[in-house]
């Protein structure tokens, strides 16, 4: 899987840290390996009648070794967690960047809660595992190798038996793991679905409570939890089976070694001290091996996490980057032309053969019932989708060939649902970009009618907004206008932009909007005809097609026009 390779490459910590970590792990393995050699001396010398002073010396050496080993392993833990966090932080940013690059169709299928789980939850599982892998798995494997090597030099027959035994256990474990991965993956999916459920319901808590649907939602939570439990149960049944079996297999290894040792010792080939040494090695290996197996659960989770991360990275953008990007005209208003544009979400045709033309500086009002395709049309102009047929041209450039950077700079959206970030007012205005000078931000807030609001904030532009609850919906709309003012675009798409404003605020915005659109091309998607008072042309959209198109004055004057009928109704 090339995508999982890319995923893992992000985890590479850089060679210097890696060397330091390697050294710490090696030392942490070598020091405890030497301990049983000292015990062998001790037992043999004690049975051989050596002096107490000599024995005490060996015992002290053993103690020193133990303490040094602990110090080294602490350093290893510190290094490993740094390495893991550095790597997974990089991976998290990479994933977020990739997911952000995917088109709106993708985001329509995946809730923010699910994305949190995929960009953070999966990566945290990997981070936990990387730490455990370095400390328990790598160090454990090194220890096993060391033990086999030493035992081979002590007694080749016992060493050979030990080697075969561990090889068999390792092989069995690898086999079993392969069986465990798919069920781990299912558990992870269920848990992502559970947290997606919780996120949506917490976000909609007000609607649920006030409509008396709380108990019903709790029942749904029970169902989601039950599905998670069943997936979990299946995966743990396999996982714990592996742990139990490995433990038994390991005991067989120990028994085999000790049986051989008893036989060798009875025939006088090895000393009692060597038998103790063999026993200590098998004991010493046991703890790290059990920890290693204990990591299996995380290993499954991490493998599943890696697979899902790779799956996300393998998602292709449907909007291809232009081979030879053409920048949009850098200054002035931009012309807009739609040539026979059709678009469908899957099977459902949303727009069919729409043709529109706007001269630079002109404004067009788009009216029609909800669901008629107005919003989609706006998104095509922003190149959030590509048309299935036909072309969208801005400033004479087909958007499929336009340079993405200049496209984002020159075309601006004021959306229907305004996202207020839990961040400072400044970050909310600039969308986290370089702020430039505060005076300009203040001036723009003043212009859209948020001057008084700003003055009421405890820390001015540095005030932290706590998400959407910090602003009323109307104020949020004004904030979106302020964002638009800051970007100096050549084409502005306003999607229902003033729908949540009271008339007084809307008028304030309109004055400012006139200024914004004065030297710019504008596409106004509106349900409220009052926001169309200054547009040049009107297009009436019905079921994905333009059914009426003309100068506003002309349509308003013609009592037979749909637009005039809409006006009549709005009175």
């Amino acid at each position: 899987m090339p995508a999982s390779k890319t995923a893992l490459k992000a985890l590479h910590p850089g060679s210097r840290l890696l060397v330091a970590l390697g050294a710490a792990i090696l030392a942490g393995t070598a020091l405890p390996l030497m301990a049983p050699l000292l015990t062998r001396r001790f037992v043999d010398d004690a049975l051989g009648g050596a002096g107490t002073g000599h024995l005490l010396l060996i015992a002290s050496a053993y103690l020193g070794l133990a303490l040094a080993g602990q110090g080294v392993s602490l350093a290893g833990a510190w290094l490993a967690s740094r390495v893991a966090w550095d790597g997974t932080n990089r991976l998290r940013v990479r994933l977020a960047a990739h997911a952000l690059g995917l088109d709106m169709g993708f985001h329509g299928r995946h809730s923010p809660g699910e994305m949190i789980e995929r960009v953070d939850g999966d990566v945290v599982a990997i981070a936990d595992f990387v730490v455990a892998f370095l400390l328990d798995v790598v160090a454990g494997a090194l220890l096993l190798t060391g033990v086999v090597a030493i035992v081979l030099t002590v007694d080749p027959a016992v060493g050979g038996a030990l080697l075969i035994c561990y090889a068999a256990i390792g092989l069995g474990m690898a086999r079993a793991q392969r069986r465990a991965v798919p069920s781990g993956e299912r558990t992870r999916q269920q848990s992502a679905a559970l947290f997606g459920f919780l996120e949506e319901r917490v976000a909609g808590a007000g609607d649920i409570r006030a409509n008396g649907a709380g108990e019903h939602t709790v029942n749904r939570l029970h169902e989601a939890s039950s599905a998670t439990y069943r997936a979990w149960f299946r995966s743990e049944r396999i996982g714990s089976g592996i742990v139990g079996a490995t433990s038994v297999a390991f005991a067989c290894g120990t028994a085999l070694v000790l049986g051989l040792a008893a036989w060798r010792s009875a025939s006088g080939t090895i000393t009692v001290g060597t038998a103790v040494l063999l026993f200590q090695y098998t004991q010493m290996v046991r703890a790290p091996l059990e920890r290693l197996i204990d990591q299996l659960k995380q290993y499954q989770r991490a493998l599943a996490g890696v697979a899902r991360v790779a799956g996300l990275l393998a998602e292709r953008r449907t909007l291809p980057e232009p081979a030879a990007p053409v920048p949009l005209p850098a200054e002035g208003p931009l012309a807009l032309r739609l040539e026979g544009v059709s678009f469908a979400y899957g099977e459902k045709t949303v727009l069919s053969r729409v043709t529109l033309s706007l001269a630079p500086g002109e404004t067009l009002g788009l009216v029609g019932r909800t669901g008629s395709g107005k919003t989609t049309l706006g998104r095509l102009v922003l190149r959030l989708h590509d048309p299935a047929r036909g072309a969208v041209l801005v400033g004479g450039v087909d958007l499929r060939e336009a340079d993405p950077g200049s496209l984002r700079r020159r075309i601006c959206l004021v959306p229907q649902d305004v996202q207020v970030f839990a961040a400072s007012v400044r970050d909310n205005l600039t969308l986290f970009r370089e702020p430039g000078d505060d005076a300009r931000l203040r001036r723009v807030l003043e212009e859209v009618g948020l001057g008084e609001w700003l003055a009421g904030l405890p820390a001015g532009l540095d005030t932290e907004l706590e998400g959407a609850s910090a602003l009323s919906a109307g104020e949020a709309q004004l904030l979106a206008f302020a964002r638009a003012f800051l970007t100096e675009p050549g084409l502005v798409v306003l999607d229902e932009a003033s729908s949540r404003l009271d008339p007084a605020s809307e008028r304030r915005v309109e004055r400012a909007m006139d200024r914004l659109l004065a030297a710019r091309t504008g596409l106004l998607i509106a349900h409220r005809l009052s926001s169309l008072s200054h547009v040049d042309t009107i297009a009436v959209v019905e079921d994905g097609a333009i059914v009426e198109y003309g100068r506003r004055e002309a349509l308003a004057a013609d009592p037979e026009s749909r637009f005039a009928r809409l006006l009549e109704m709005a009175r």
Partner: protein
Amino acid sequence: MPKTTPTAPVPPAAERRRSRDRREEEATPVLPALRDLARAAGLRRFVAGALLWLPVSVIPLASGLVMKALFDRISDGQRAGLDQALWLCAAFVGVEAVRGVLLWVAWTHGVYWWNAAVTVLRVNVMRTILTGGTRRLPRSSGGAVSRLRDDVEDLAQLADNAVPLLGTAVFSAGALAIMATIDPLVTLVLVLPMIAVAVLSRALHRVVRRLHAHARERGMAVTAHIGQIFSGVLTIKAAGAEPALLERLRRHNRGRREAAVRDRLVTSMLDGATNATVEISLGVVLLLAAPSMRRGEFTVGDFALFTSYIGWLTALPRVVGSTLYRLPQASVAIDRLTALMGEGSSPADLSRPTQIWFRGAPPPAAAPPEREELHVLEARGLTVDHGGGGRGVHKVDLRLPRGSFTVVTGAVGAGKTTLLHGLLGLVPLDAGEILWNGRVVEDPGAFMVPGRVAYVGQVPRLFSGSLRENLLLGWPADAQATGRALGRAVFERDLAGMPEGLDTVVGPRGMRLSGGQAQRVTAARALVREPELLVVDDLSSALDVETERLLWRRNTGGTLLVVSHRRAVLERADRIVVLERGRVAGEGRLGELLADCAEMRRLWEADAAGQRPVAD
């Protein structure tokens, strides 16, 4: 009575803050919560699980004794012992095989309890948020998810820890008793470093608590930021602000790494200390046993037994250490989950007994309460001060007789939504009272629900699932009633265009519907409940004129409380309440208000000015 005197010397919000500060100084007790949790998730299963785990922990006692016998045979150095030695090896394998099988059974059994425990916690939190009467709504859904994931698991993990704790304690008692019969002095000395570890853990308690809370906070900052990246994806992509948001993510990432590494280091220090205990203990055994081994009083078999037991004995300080280190974490988790449930919740609410439905479906939600006919709804002196932040509403009076159409209007930020939220108990009242047919409503959050009241929010909230599920949310309505509600919400034409009808899947947060469709589905959701009073917060914001006009025409006759500033709605109203910065600036019919309410004139004329040029 929830009525508070407006002249109370200490505002309730400040009082709440102070009591929270006080609580923060001492850790919330964890043990009662864990006991209740064990009970709520199934005490019998918990005990059964513990009894299954017990032999898994205790069987190594037998393994050690087998080892002792084996090494005593080996050190005898006699050929006759070989047979016995081989039998002992076989016995060792047998004992371990029993342990392996028990481990598998106990572990598999434990999965149920663990899942039951996390489910109890999540269900209790969600039930309190969704059905617990008047309380503030959670601020950030991303943050809430991270609490429902991590904090819940922390608590369950700690309760789960009690099982290995018991097992290792029993093993340790047995092992120490056996070792004491062999060499009491060495055994006694071995206990000392273990006590040292326990004392050290205790001392590090506070540091761990602080570092862990910090790491969690930084983690939440990352989660919340990722959450808002993806909920604001349209804004971000349209503005090309991706690099700036990723840069901010990097900054949050760095903060989290620093905190997490520090947290991990302290944990490793605790772990390291327990591991060092074993090594040091073995060294101590060698030092102390050297003379008696020379004399032959301490045999090689004894040494093998000590070696074998000391390895397992580490589990005790380790499990004790990890329990001690999880205790403060759990205390943080309890505090945060309690805070998530909102004001008036106590830690005891977290582990209230809750039926678990892992096998079989839960029974359908209780039948809706009896319809209670509305004659008149009154509100007196409603005040919500949002913690004194200057926003909110102050001393608002309302009177809605049966069949009336009341419109709340006002400039942006005047407190219109807050007023509705206060009335519905979606935010606690700081003062004032609500009367339903003249009777005081004690808990608006629990009372102002269907069959009395239904609500359409300003931003449509839909959930992954079918249209039908989003519409009914468990409400018992037949096809006819559903069709009626959809008609009144002007959704019938949209529905006709959907090949799968009510089974159409709306996608996460209803993203597959257009904004206007989503809003009309939420309207239908309220209408299908056939409320006595329908509360609507600016339904018109995503609707075109024609649709909206149709919708109001189809909903005349009921009692309506509506936030709007559209002229058509204002003209239709029986009574208009004009809010200005949270206070009532005027109320009455449109004509009266236009005559003597400056704010109404300002709003009205602004709207007229906005419309006239189009109509010309």
